[in-house]
């Protein structure tokens, strides 16, 4: 297999997660310029350059096996992280089909899908799975179709039902969220679940985004990047487990910033689903420590400038306030004031 997996790394307890040099280089650094502000920064989710996180519809990387194990641990502790309302069954199958088709097309050495009418056989070599089942018959899978396939795909997933000129979060597999709760948001409309986001409502960002998404076409997915920061390479930063990770925010010192503070970038993609007319929202997260990012000084300089000009409301919302000064101090060592050209690429 072409990807050298790191099956033993952990996202909790001893936090052995690290990025290889190749993984740092392909990290989707999100800041084009020295200041950050919300925008409807959506673009067609078309095939990107080979090796980039945009190469394929669903990105599989060196952390795949370890991330899937972390998801299984979280689900074991809290099965409520996977939710699907009864009217979403067609959308569940749509999602399974889209992901199986995409992975087997994009990673033929790792995933294969054999179809004989509705008799399908799915092979996932990295996880050692071979499953024969009948498409459309949930009883032939070990768990419901949406849970089945998203236990085998990196990133969090929400399926939205479209009705009343709105989108409703009626299904989700959420085990690596940046401090939001599926149990809280399930069944909410687009404006409801974006309610807590500061500043963007005043800019009309969500209104424009919703109008745009309601017209999303089959076969023409779109994507955007979003970001926040996380202390320790932890995937499960949900409100439910806040007592476990919340105190980490107070643990950042000038000595451990480089290891502990992580930039967390979400590659968010939206796909119109064919049978159900629903919409799959995939949130693929990438974590890189400050040390890893600073291997490219250009990124460290830019992040220093973005954080130092970030509006307070956004710093509060993203939960950075407590450790922002320490992080800024650390990053300032890299920032010589050089004028940086627009763009996100490493040097």
């Amino acid at each position, binding site marked *: 297999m072409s990807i050298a997996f790191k099956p033993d790394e952990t996202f909790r307890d001893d936090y052995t997660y690290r990025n290889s040099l190749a993984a740092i280089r392909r990290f989707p650094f999100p800041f084009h310029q020295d200041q950050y502000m919300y925008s409807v920064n959506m673009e067609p989710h078309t095939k990107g350059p080979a090796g980039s996180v945009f190469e394929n519809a669903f990105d599989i990387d060196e952390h795949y096996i370890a991330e899937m194990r972390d998801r299984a641990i979280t689900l074991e502790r809290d099965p409520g992280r996977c939710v699907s309302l009864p009217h*979403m069954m*067609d959308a569940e199958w749509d999602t399974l089909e889209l992901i199986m088709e995409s992975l087997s097309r994009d990673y033929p050495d790792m995933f294969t899908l054999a179809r004989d009418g509705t008799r399908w056989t799915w092979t996932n070599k990295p996880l050692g799975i071979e499953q024969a089942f009948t498409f459309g018959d949930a009883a032939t899978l070990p768990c419901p179709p949406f849970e089945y396939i998203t236990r085998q795909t990196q990133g969090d997933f929400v399926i939205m039902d*479209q009705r*009343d000129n709105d989108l409703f979060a009626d299904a989700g597999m959420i085990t690596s969220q940046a401090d939001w709760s599926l149990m809280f948001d399930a069944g909410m409309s687009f404006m409801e679940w974006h309610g807590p986001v500061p500043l963007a409502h005043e800019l009309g960002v969500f209104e424009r985004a919703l109008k745009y998404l309601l017209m999303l*076409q*089959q*076969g023409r997915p779109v994507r955007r990047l979003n970001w926040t920061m996380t202390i320790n390479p932890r995937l499960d930063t949900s409100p439910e487990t806040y007592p476990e990770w919340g105190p980490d925010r107070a643990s950042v010192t000038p000595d451990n910033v480089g290891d502990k503070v992580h930039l967390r970038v979400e590659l968010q993609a939206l796909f119109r689903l*064919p*049978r159900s007319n629903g919409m799959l929202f995939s949130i693929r997260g990438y974590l890189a420590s400050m040390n890893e990012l600073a291997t490219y000084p250009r990124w460290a300089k830019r992040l220093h400038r973005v954080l130092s000009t970030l509006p307070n409301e956004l710093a509060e919302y993203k939960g950075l306030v407590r450790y922002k000064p320490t992080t800024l101090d650390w990053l300032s060592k890299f920032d010589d004031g050089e004028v940086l050209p627009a763009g996100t690429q490493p040097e």
Partner: protein
Amino acid sequence: MSSASLNVEIRRIRELAPGIREFSLSRTDGEDFPVYSGGSHIVLSLPLGDRPHRNPYSLLGDPTVRDTWRVAVRKQEESRGGSRWLHEQAREGMRIDISAPVNLFPLIRTGRRHILVAGGIGITPILSQARELARLGADFEVHYAYRGPEFGVFSNELEALAPGRVHHYVQSRREQIEFGSLLAGRPLGTHFYICGPAGMVAASMNAGKSLGWPESHLHSEQFLAPTGGEPFDVKLALSGKAFTVPSDLSLLEAIEQQGVDAPYLCRGGACGQCELEVLGAEGELIHHDLYLSADERASGKKIMPCVSRLKGGCLTLNL
């Protein structure tokens, strides 16, 4: 954003009734079609003279049959060429381009009961919706109105989907749907869907509203054919083009003919995708669409170029 296109061959043409033809389409690349949801439509690009003419038609076949898509076309009396071409020029074996499916008339999956109403050729999206509801095992009924017995072209397919739950109304027998009684006394959670002539759609919506139905439970689909009109001048501020929209083209078609890529989806005044910003209008905007609100029309700042026009001098658009 204009639509992705697929090249298809017309595999089979069936004469269903006087003025109604069904077309079966297959992909020329040998691939399967994607699945679609009940109520979806595609846009056909038809070779009329030197320009493609794009018309939307609902998909009516079984979405699980992925080697064939079916549409049915009624010959419009005042056709600008599209339906006439399909009735007079189209032959089996010809190739045309079509768009990917879009659904502006989706079923509401949280609905407890569904009432579907079709008027004439409005049966096409209703048929695919009925198919989907039957597959889901949902509680639904269909009301199908047509001019005479020979025009009930999909009666047998419907009956097979919903035995005992299809009601027929034949105009030549003076049968007519009474929307007041059809919609009265329905339990909460019932959704109503109609596709048919404008007068019929309006009558049903009025009946629903006067009976206290929430608007969110009343669904209709109606594409407007672009009507001709007086020629007018257009300036495109961003692309720097200036041209005249002739009487037999829509504003959208005239823009496309200039080689400018303008967004669209339904091309029938319903979806809102082609909305353009009006920078200046010397004359009166003639809005034919079903999308803009009264306030938006009054502002004079927006136009839906697929069906709307200017009466008077020159229109300047932010495109």
